């Protein structure tokens, strides 16, 4: 049984009613417990628990220190191709979006990789849209081979693939995989993904598990915040992470909380997720999964990001660029989404140090 079946059993639950029924006393009890059950996790996502943010924050801070130390891992994204066959209403790479598209040559990939490595970063996340005829598994493997000369860790955030595809990339030196389900609610998912292979909800939902089976060292999940009610979405995300953590204990499972940013097109989020709410979900995940990594991208602004360092975040991106070839010859247009934190790698490192944490550029090695 995969997570699809597990989620199927709970997806029709009236989360709204359950969440409203949670009392502050119940939330307090969960915060005080040593371990947090699935029900406890739901309680932590309730409006009542929202009144206990400071207590949750203290516990989250303490748990993160014990488990990860005063350390923040750094990485940066590099977009290899923005060709895409999907029609996702919220995304700048939407196939209907009239824009110049580009796939970097392997030589260009190496050149941009070398530029990034010059900043001292050793962890790289490579991204593409969903267009395997433009950016095939073989192409990704070849790029990885070149990039491995400069980076101790190369992760992918590309289209979902079969286990064999992930295995080929692991063999080529990829050690991490990120895929956001975007929306766990299948009906909303179907509405927002109008056309393309991404319409296959189940294939995407089970992609992280296939990556675990293929031997990825790290697997990162996320729900795009703003597409649906965040409390039930983050609940599904947490259960998904726990399912993988329990079943694949040798894979490091982490989660991201991407809030929708403006992108090309006219899409406006259906739900606004406030800063307080984003903090609540980060804290709830930390209390539920003390050993899970929590990744924070440059979608959030510098001041907010700096304040989140102490609340459970373990990895942050720096010096980001969401445009293909953006570091080589980009004009700053046509990225996947707008970046909010535009600080350079050096500035990001300084800010993390100033907050009492060590920015870590290298935390794996080619073996």
């Amino acid at each position: 049984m995969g997570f699809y079946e597990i989620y199927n059993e709970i997806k029709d639950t009236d989360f709204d009613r359950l969440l409203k029924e949670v009392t502050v006393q119940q939330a307090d009890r969960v915060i005080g417990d040593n371990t947090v059950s699935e029900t406890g996790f739901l309680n932590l996502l309730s409006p009542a628990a929202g009144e206990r943010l400071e207590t949750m924050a203290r516990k989250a801070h303490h748990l993160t220190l014990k488990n990860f130390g005063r350390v923040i891992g750094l990485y940066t994204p590099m977009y290899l191709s923005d060709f895409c066959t999907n029609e996702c209403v919220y995304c700048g790479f939407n196939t209907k979006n009239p824009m110049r598209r580009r796939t970097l040559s392997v030589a260009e990939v190496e050149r941009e990789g070398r530029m990034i490595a010059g900043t001292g970063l050793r962890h790289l996340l490579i991204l593409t849209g969903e267009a395997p005829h433009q950016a095939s598994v073989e192409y990704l493997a070849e790029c990885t081979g070149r990039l491995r000369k400069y980076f101790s860790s190369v992760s992918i955030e590309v289209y979902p693939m079969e286990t064999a595809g992930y295995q080929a990339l692991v063999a080529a030196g990829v050690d991490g995989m990120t895929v956001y389900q975007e929306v766990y609610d299948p009906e909303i998912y179907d509405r927002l993904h109008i056309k393309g292979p991404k319409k296959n909800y189940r294939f995407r939902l089970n992609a992280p598990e296939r990556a675990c089976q293929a031997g990825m060292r790290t697997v990162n999940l996320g729900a795009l915040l703003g597409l649906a009610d965040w409390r039930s979405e983050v609940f599904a995300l947490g259960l998904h992470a726990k399912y993988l953590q329990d079943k694949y204990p040798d894979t490091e499972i982490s989660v991201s909380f991407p809030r929708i940013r403006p992108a090309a097109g006219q899409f406006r989020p259906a739900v606004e997720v406030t800063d307080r709410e984003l903090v609540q979900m980060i804290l709830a995940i930390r209390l539920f999964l003390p050993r899970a990594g929590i990744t924070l991208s440059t979608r959030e602004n510098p001041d907010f990001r700096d304040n989140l360092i102490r609340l459970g975040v373990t990895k942050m991106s720096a010096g980001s660029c969401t445009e293909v070839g953006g570091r080589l010859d980009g004009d700053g247009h046509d990225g996947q989404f707008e970046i909010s934190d535009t600080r350079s790698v050096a500035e990001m490192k300084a800010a993390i140090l100033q907050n009492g944490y060590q920015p870590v550029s290298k935390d794996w090695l080619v073996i």
Partner: protein
Amino acid sequence: MDILKIGGQEIHNRLFLGTGKFASDALIPDVIKASGVQVVTVALRRVDFENEQENMLNYIDKECVLMPNTSGARTADEAVRIARIARAAGCGNWVKIEVIKDNKYLLPDNYETLKTTEILAREGFAVFPYMSPDLMVARQMRDAGAAAVMPLGSPIGSNRGLQTRELVRILIDEIDLPIIVDAGIGRPSEAAEAMEMGAAAVLVNTAIAVADDPVAMAAAFSMAVKAGRQGYLAGPGAAKLYAEASSPLTGFLRDSD
């Protein structure tokens, strides 16, 4: 002078330092100075030999004995490769074996750790296996040529102290290798307790690195380790379960009986 002879070195400070969780590598020299620590473990995964400014090794006094560790290894094969990379990079021939397949509790895989120990001891490494305290496996580690065994006090980073007390005590009694308690030690008093029990040394990272004042905490741990060691050497009186009755229960027995 009380010296720990181990892995071809003479160690006089029995507090070993882990380095993975500090707010800044720049704190490490002060921590080493304040505590007098001699043995320092470093995760090879964190060392960037190509980046002078961020190479953690530059913050470790050259007088220290470096103990690279295989953090991140999930199998014996990965651990062996990491150890070989460390030696080839000039990190000496000590290696702390960490083989962990369990990201939730970070508990070591004793079986893979044993396999690693067998291979690396044959290759001339001074092997320090981090393990769950299991007497049978500890014997096999010894037979495989380990320089010491490093049982955990409680899970890494948990700061819960010597939860495995009885099992560690058995290793100390039965294994004629130095027993180094590694992981879980949260307070100086717990380090002292391990040393009083007869541990050869204690390895601490989290409790020092995440303290409000890591330098002061390192000094406190160093003193606690020394106190515990001296207490052990001084031979404490046997702890008594019951008070000595002033009218002994066997006082009626005479020598002539």
